[in-house]
């Protein structure tokens, strides 16, 4: 083949361009620590990275939801524990003050105490988690219970529940219907407010004997109220466990997905550096060869 000076310089320039391009690519990879710096670097890899990112984003949202759910469950657990204490306190009052020897003055003092308990239970039943009432179903802006002057409590909420999405199409339901906690007579349970009202009425009854009967009639229901609250509290246990387990699951999945994304888009720095080093060597030898071959010409050797 006939070789001309232009061919040589063309070939050299082409090689130099290719080599500098390859070096630039490695340099970019090392600087960004990423193998995929734009979709065209690896289109299918980019697709998998994006799918991974969507999952990560959903996972961290689920993890946040679970945290909120746990906080809410713990908060309602605390609230119910206090209610339970108060109900037991009222039961003890009923037991102690039902005797015939208890004086009217003692009963009236106890009545004040139970009124206090009543209002505290009412206050706890109207607890808010953030801006929202815990026990008013979906009517989260409405206080679930109000009482009139005769200590008759009415429920203003509905049967809605608090829902926590913890995975795709998986929702954990937390009962937010206040009646299931405090006014469960329709389901064969105890209406705590009514029992407390009856206790107050009994304690305030001027007919001490009739009062004693009234007071005694509240002891068993108040004991049942304790069981009712305990049952609702124990419902939270498995739910907490479920949230906990799901949270751990997400933590594991998150690591897996992160690793998968890393494998897809992270550069093997050691390899990139070695490749860069090789390219550098090739580049330098091309330059050295160019300087030796391009320069000489017959012109230099003719007198």
């Amino acid at each position, binding site marked *: *083949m*006939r*070789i*001309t*000076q*232009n*061919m040589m310089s*063309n*070939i050299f320039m*082409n090689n130099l361009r290719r080599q500098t391009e390859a070096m630039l690519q490695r340099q970019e990879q090392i600087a960004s620590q*990423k193998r*995929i*710096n*734009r*979709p*065209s*670097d*690896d*289109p*299918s890899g*980019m*697709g998998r990275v*994006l*799918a991974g*990112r*969507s999952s990560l*984003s*959903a996972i961290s*949202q*689920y993890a*946040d*939801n679970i945290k*909120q759910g746990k906080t809410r469950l713990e908060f309602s657990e605390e609230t119910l524990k206090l209610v339970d204490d108060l109900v037991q306190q009222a039961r003890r009052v009923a037991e102690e003050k039902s005797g015939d020897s208890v004086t009217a003055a003692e009963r009236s003092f106890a009545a004040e105490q139970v009124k206090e308990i009543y209002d505290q239970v009412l206050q706890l039943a109207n607890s808010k988690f*953030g*801006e*929202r009432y815990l026990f*008013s*179903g*979906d*009517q*989260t*802006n409405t206080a679930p219970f109000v009482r009139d002057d005769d200590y008759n409590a009415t429920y203003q909420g*509905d049967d*809605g529940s*608090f*829902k*926590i*999405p913890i995975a*795709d*199409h998986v*929702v954990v339901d937390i009962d*937010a219907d206040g009646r299931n906690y405090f006014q469960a007579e329709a389901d064969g349970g105890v209406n705590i407010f009514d029992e407390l009202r009856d206790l107050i009425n009994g304690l305030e009854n001027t007919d001490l004997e009739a009062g004693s009967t009234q007071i005694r009639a509240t002891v068993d229901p108040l004991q049942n109220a304790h069981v009712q609250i305990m049952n609702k509290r124990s419902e939270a246990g498995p739910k907490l466990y479920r949230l906990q387990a799901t949270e751990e699951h997400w933590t594991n999945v998150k690591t897996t997905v992160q690793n998968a994304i890393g494998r897809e*888009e992270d550069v093997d720095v050691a390899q990139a550096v070695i490749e860069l080093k090789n390219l550098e060597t090739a580049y330098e030898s091309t330059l050295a060869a160019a300087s030796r071959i391009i320069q000489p*010409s*017959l*012109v230099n050797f*003719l007198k």
Partner: protein
Amino acid sequence: MTHLFGVLTTGTSALLTQQRAINVTGNNIANVNTPGYSRQKLNLETNTPVYTAAGLMSFGVNSTGIERVYDRFLGVQLNNENAALGRWEAQQGMLDRVEVVFDESDGYGLNQAMSDFWNAWQNLSLNPSGSTERSMVAATSQGLADAIREKYAELEQIQEDIDTALESGVETVNRLVAQIADLNQKIASTESGGISANDYRDSRDLVLKQLAEIIDIKSFENSDGQVVVSVADGRPLVETGTTRQLQTQTNADGHTEILWPDVSNSPVTITSRITGGKIGGWLQTRDTQIAGYQDQLDALADGLRGQVNAVHAAGYGLDGTTGTNLFDDSTSGAADFRVNPDILSNLDLIAAAATSGGVPGNADNAIAVYDLRTAMTMSAGTATFDTAVNTLVSSVGYDVQTATANSSHQAEMMTYLENYRESVSGVSLDEEMVNLVKFEAAYNAAAKMISMADDMLNTLMSIVG
């Protein structure tokens, strides 16, 4: 017939011819770096021989013409490959810009906007009456709509830039066509006198190559040395005696169409028939690739509008209203994809509850909207919204990758062919130096011969004198 003056005649012809050869060599050296130049060589021939006492004998040398060294079949191949190179380079150039529009590698883009949108609905489901959560839903819906709309607009911008490039491409085509017609004329008139128009031919080859880079052409040389050039399945641009100028026109979509004047000079649209050269590449990027991405964005916008609106309208806002759309449905497609302005001015309209009685604490509708994230709503029920976005980004990546690979492959091909052309037609300085020495030596020897003839004449004269 052998006489002393014959030696002088021979010497003179040698001097003149070697000098001419040195001129040709000098011209080769001068044009060593001229694009498209083919090395030339002087064809030498002995003078017509005459009968002498000693027999048939020639007196001196004669040059019969300057010939250009080239491979006549290479030109067409170079032009074809150059058209392919132009096409892929043009595509790569424009698609690189499209890729920037869909650059998701830093984590901000459509994918992120989608995720933020879904997460906002989940957050709302945890606190359906919360004003922070509601404004997040509004903001992320707007962010998603903005992202889709902006990407669409940026794609349109690139299409408009392609239109501008097409206009100037057509201008270049017309200029080159005029040059080819002019060179045709010169070559025909030069060669009708029997002289080969080497430099004009080099220029014409170069112009043809430039033309092929812009638009794919078919060309052949007819018997009088003129080339006939045609585009778009045999529509002639240059014929003996006539040239046609391409025209541009804006079509109903606001894009540039390319027209060719037919025999009766009425313009015919040839846009879809141009497949090569830069113009072919630009057209394909504008009408196939970018239009395809826009279709995908349209489908995404229409999908979100249809699906999310259907779920959203079934739910109830904080104020108990129902039937509200989340996305404005007075238009279709991605170009004008917006959040319902009513929602933006009144966040209470965001429908988180599934029943009017469930307001404000019910989140069933927010959860239903969120569930659309995993629903197979796109591509005839085979993909989710997220997958549709990822597929779009990947397909842009594939197209850029293909264009880059093809254009670098074409560039290699061109280098190979250019080198082959260079190997046949290129000037080798070493070769020219050797020729120079050769012709110089011949010239010196011829001069020596004349001086010797002079000596002989002097000797003769002195005898006579």
